[in-house]
């Protein structure tokens, strides 16, 4: 296994990330030496790491990736799963925004500044938003404005405002606009009443107008003068942004899935039995990362995360993910990461060369996959052939705990009530026939009081 620079790490001349023999390293270039030393020697590093706001690293003595520019090499603590802002629910994006502002403030107190405010620099580590780019901090020079102000507004404030004031699904704009939502677009989409909120008026509406007014430098026109900004002014900007972010709220009551457990017809006994079976099989397959696909509010994800498995709880519904995240947050859950994910259109590779942000499947394989009460939504709700579904699951992870929900189940009957039944092979035999192409069935169990069947399967192809 060789070494290579990370596809997402090319913008900052002060250093870059590379992988060597499966381990991630960060090269600090000589250009970034002074800022790096100031962070390490001036107490900011210890302060941020101590507060859980920065991913810790150690300096290592290995050959540099680019010896001609290198100052030193760092080995950051491993982040087991990378997630992206367009996969976060409202609460996650809001917490990441507040963490970014807190880091900027801590930096200022140590005579440094956060030079970029990219949402992609924040990762959820043990459930908490944490800065992963230790080269984002540089020495503060009195009088300088916050270079990352525009970026913060585009990556955090604009999407949060759109989610809170227009529609929570607008977080998906972050998938299209890799450097955050353009402020002129946010201004057009936001309701007029947001002009009465000082933070949104100043940082989005006036900001967009200022950008338009001063956009482009025409030849022959002098470059706009750069002014100075007092430290109090800097703090004022951070405080104002923080207040604007905190004022934004979104409550998930009205989405379709958030109430699923309460609304579905299954008895507590069947649910408890299902939990008992799943827990037993999780014990059997042993520890490792679990992807809970169609996790809803995370009831079954907990069975995995409580065993210490990092559990990625994906669901299409931002309301269910929000409830899951708030529950994780309240319980200081360190092993569960809820994410908004449409499995019929999972996150693709994005950014420069389509490689800056990894596709979902590139971030695996997981040790195991939970697909509970999901197959009918994919097969009947989205016409995915069962064989294709099995193949997708086998690309996600080695072990599969899957629930088959037959046509006589009320949930499937509901799906079929408004459409023609074109799914002749959607039955238990057809399901098994399709899945044994890619999986070996290790165990199976009927769910008492229902017509549902649970399976523990193991992928037959080789996993690295």
């Amino acid at each position, binding site marked *: 296994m060789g070494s290579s620079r990370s596809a997402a790490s090319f913008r900052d001349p002060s250093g870059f990330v590379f992988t060597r023999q499966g381990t991630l390293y960060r090269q600090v270039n000589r250009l970034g030496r002074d800022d790096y030393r100031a962070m390490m020697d001036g107490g900011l590093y210890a302060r941020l790491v101590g507060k859980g706001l920065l991913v810790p690293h150690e300096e290592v003595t290995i050959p540099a990736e680019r010896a001609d520019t290198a100052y030193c090499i760092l080995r950051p603590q491993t982040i087991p799963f990378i997630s992206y802002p367009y996969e976060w629910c409202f609460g996650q994006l809001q917490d990441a925004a507040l963490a970014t502002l807190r880091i900027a403030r801590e930096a200022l107190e140590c005579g440094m500044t956060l030079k970029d405010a990219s949402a992609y620099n924040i990762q959820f580590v043990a459930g908490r938003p944490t800065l992963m780019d230790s080269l984002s901090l*540089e020495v503060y020079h009195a009088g300088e404005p916050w270079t990352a102000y525009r970026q913060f507004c585009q990556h955090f404030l604009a999407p949060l405002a759109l989610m809170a004031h227009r529609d929570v699904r607008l977080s998906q704009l972050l998938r299209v606009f890799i450097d955050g939502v353009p402020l002129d677009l946010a201004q057009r989409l936001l309701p007029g009443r947001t002009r009465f909120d000082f933070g949104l008026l100043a940082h989005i509406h006036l900001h967009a107008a200022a950008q338009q007014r001063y956009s482009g430098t025409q030849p022959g026109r002098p470059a706009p003068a750069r*002014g100075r900004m007092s430290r109090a002014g800097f703090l004022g900007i951070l405080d104002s942004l923080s207040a604007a972010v905190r004022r934004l709220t979104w409550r998930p009551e009205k989405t379709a899935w958030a109430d699923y457990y309460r609304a579905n017809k299954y008895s507590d006994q069947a649910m408890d039995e299902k939990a008992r079976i799943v827990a037993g099989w999780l014990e059997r397959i042993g520890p490792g990362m679990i992807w809970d696909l169609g996790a809803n509010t995370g009831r079954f994800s907990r069975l995995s995360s409580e065993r210490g498995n990092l559990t990625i709880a994906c669901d299409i519904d931002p309301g269910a993910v929000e409830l899951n995240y708030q529950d994780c947050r309240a319980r200081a859950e360190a092993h569960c990461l809820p994410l908004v994910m449409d499995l019929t259109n999972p996150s693709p590779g994005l950014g420069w060369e389509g490689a800056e942000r990894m596709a979902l499947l590139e971030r695996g394989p997981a040790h195991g996959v939970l697909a509970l009460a999901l197959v009918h939504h994919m097969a009947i709700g989205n016409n995915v052939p069962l064989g294709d579904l099995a193949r997708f699951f086998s690309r996600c992870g080695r072990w599969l705990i899957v629930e088959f929900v037959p046509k006589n189940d009320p949930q499937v009957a509901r799906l079929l009530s408004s459409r023609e039944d074109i799914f002749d092979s959607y039955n238990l035999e057809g399901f098994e026939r399709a899945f044994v192409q890619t999986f070996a069935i290790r165990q199976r169990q009927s769910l008492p009081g229902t017509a549902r069947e649970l399976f523990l399967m193991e992928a037959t192809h080789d996993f690295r």
Partner: protein
Amino acid sequence: MHVLLLSSVTWMAGLPAGGSAQGLMYLDPGSGSILLQLALAALLGVAVIARAFWSKIKAFFARLAGRSGKEPGDGK
């Protein structure tokens, strides 16, 4: 908008002109963003200073009240 930006330019007039001593600025902060930020900072900075001043005044009177309320010899 124009009033806001104009006031910031007036505010900036008394300060040294020219670029700040930023090191490796690889992000384009955007001219409009910088100008708006300067204008807002002038406004919001005053609030920060006023808040800090007010908390000092409160702390001073709290100390004063604490000292007068203390019996001699009850300190540690």
